[in-house]
């Protein structure tokens, strides 16, 4: 039986986390995502599934609690918004360096600094280019609906465990706060200690038994040669993700002469822009990256061959546009249109931007 509910994106994250068998959530309040932890605390999953929910003293502590839990082979996650995610960058690079799976949700708000509590997409670079120090990548998923907020929790965990790599759900204040209909999946059991030992016993700190060597979760390596080799291993992992995990949605792209590229709430706005444009006889399509890392380079490159111009639409001063340009590699003009600081563009103004860039003069 389908279970449909009207809920906020942030609530959907919490509900999906419980239902996919998450073992632990560690977080710190920050607008506009506090409903994630509030929902979890109200649901009291420790009484039902045994899931641990803990309010930490800071985002620094939250992400390091996640490190500890992930090191034990547990399904652990945290959520925050931009300034809090900045504080987590240290922990994220250690988690990437120690090759631990975990899920981090960023419900982005406008910056820089304390910025605004209104929605933005200005943390793209931080999410997809590493964020902390060293050469590493986060698997980055960009939900564009409350349904995807729910669905991507389990997907993010699956990818995180598949690659032993942190995964980020890069949302924004619109998707986090808006209410939509969501189909919730049935409750899955959490993994037992025995199942964890069987699946992850070769690396997780589950207690050193006589039949194996001790497991050590670490990112330190003083030998440059070993460190270079380890980096090669990480790069091979990221390459595999680029080959196998690209996800995107294309809308009205088959006959498109102009292409919009947008993710998350910008993609929702651009869907309407496509309708408005087509009503005026302008053949516009939309490519919505679902994975921001790995980025859908090939599909964008292919579409560039048939289009006269590509507009990257983001609630930022222009971040994803750089990856669009790299994908297009000069074969067609690429421009950026963005509002930022918490301002959400209207479908009509995106259409105006498309026209002024490619159809006028």
């Amino acid at each position: 039986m389908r279970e449909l509910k009207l809920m906020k994106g942030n609530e959907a994250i919490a509900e999906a986390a419980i239902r996919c068998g998450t073992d632990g959530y560690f977080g710190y309040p920050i607008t506009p995502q506090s409903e994630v932890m509030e929902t979890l605390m109200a649901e009291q999953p420790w009484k039902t599934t045994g899931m641990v929910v803990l309010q930490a003293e800071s985002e620094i502590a939250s992400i390091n609690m996640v490190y500890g839990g992930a090191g034990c082979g547990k399904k652990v996650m945290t959520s925050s918004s931009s300034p809090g995610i900045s504080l987590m960058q240290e922990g994220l690079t250690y988690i990437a360096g120690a090759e631990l799976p975990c899920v981090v949700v960023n419900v982005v708000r406008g910056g820089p600094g304390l910025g605004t509590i209104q929605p933005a997409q200005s943390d793209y670079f931080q999410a997809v280019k590493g964020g902390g120090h060293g050469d590493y990548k986060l698997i980055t998923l960009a939900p564009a609906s409350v349904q995807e907020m729910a669905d991507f929790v389990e997907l993010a965990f699956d990818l995180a465990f598949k690659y032993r790599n942190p995964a980020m759900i890069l949302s924004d204040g619109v998707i986090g706060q808006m209410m939509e209909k969501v189909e919730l999946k049935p409750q899955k059991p959490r993994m037992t200690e025995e199942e964890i030992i069987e699946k992850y016993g070769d690396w997780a700190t589950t207690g050193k038994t006589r039949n194996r060597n001790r497991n050590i979760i670490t990112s330190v390596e003083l030998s440059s040669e070993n460190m270079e080799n380890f980096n090669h291993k990480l790069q091979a992992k990221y390459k595999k993700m680029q080959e196998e995990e690209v996800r995107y949605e294309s809308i009205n792209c088959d006959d498109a002469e102009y292409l919009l590229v947008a993710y998350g709430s910008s993609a929702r706005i651009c869907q309407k822009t496509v309708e408005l444009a087509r009503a005026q006889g302008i053949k516009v399509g939309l490519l919505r990256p679902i994975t921001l890392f790995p980025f859908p380079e090939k599909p964008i490159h292919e579409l560039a061959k048939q289009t006269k111009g590509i507009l990257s639409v983001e609630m930022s001063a222009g971040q994803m546009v750089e990856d669009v340009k790299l994908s297009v590699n000069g074969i067609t003009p690429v421009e950026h249109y963005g509002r930022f600081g918490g301002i959400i563009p209207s479908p009509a103004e995106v259409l105006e931007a498309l026209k002024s860039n490619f159809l006028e003069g």
Partner: protein
Amino acid sequence: MDIKEIIKEENIVYKKTSVLTDKVMHYCPGCTHGVVHKLVAEVIEEMGLQEKTIGVSPVGCSVFLYDYIDIDWQEAAHGRAPALATGIKRLMPDKVVFTYQGDGDLAAIGTAETIHACNRDENIVVIFINNGIYGMTGGQMAPTTLPGMKASTCPFGREPGQDGHPLKITEIVAQLPGTTFVTRQACHTPAAVRKTKKVLKKAFENQINKRGTSFVEVVATCNSGWKMSPVKANEWMEENMFPFYPLGDIKDI
């Protein structure tokens, strides 16, 4: 008498615990870390905890602690060990979890993680090595450096008005309702070593009995950082560190 006749099981009065690995420690001669590592390993062996203990090593001289004690380990970012330990213990409450941290790790960069773990009744053991200096990075001022004590970032001696005061973090965590056992020991004499082992055992027993945070400070020497011989460093510690950091149990509920 042939030596082989002497080396027999019944004649053994002391042997290295099997929980301590055979890897040669990287510590300077005279450093206290090796002694405390041995005590932790002995306590784990004697209490039969090898299969259920997860250690959290810090950033500092003891970063490679996982090379020496044969249990599962997680190596934390600087100061974050109590947060890792929280994550581990909350998700695996049947395991025995401890952190091992130096003064810079625990009382400077990790102050918030230390205090809040202790204040949440986290059922873990925190082992705190206080030698009043940053050993690994080459002898910089620590949060616990004594007034007047020289370090590479206070080459003329720590001046409290300018450089801050030495932090008695152990007295601070003793104030918190989440701690059950807070003690300060040293390893400068055989008797002190035995006493430190005794409190470590008690700390691990507290965890098994779900009694909240046990916090064991060991006032330690860093003769390289202090630029003294091992013997002189021990004397200097007694004369200068102990009056400021007096040994003994601070809290025992």
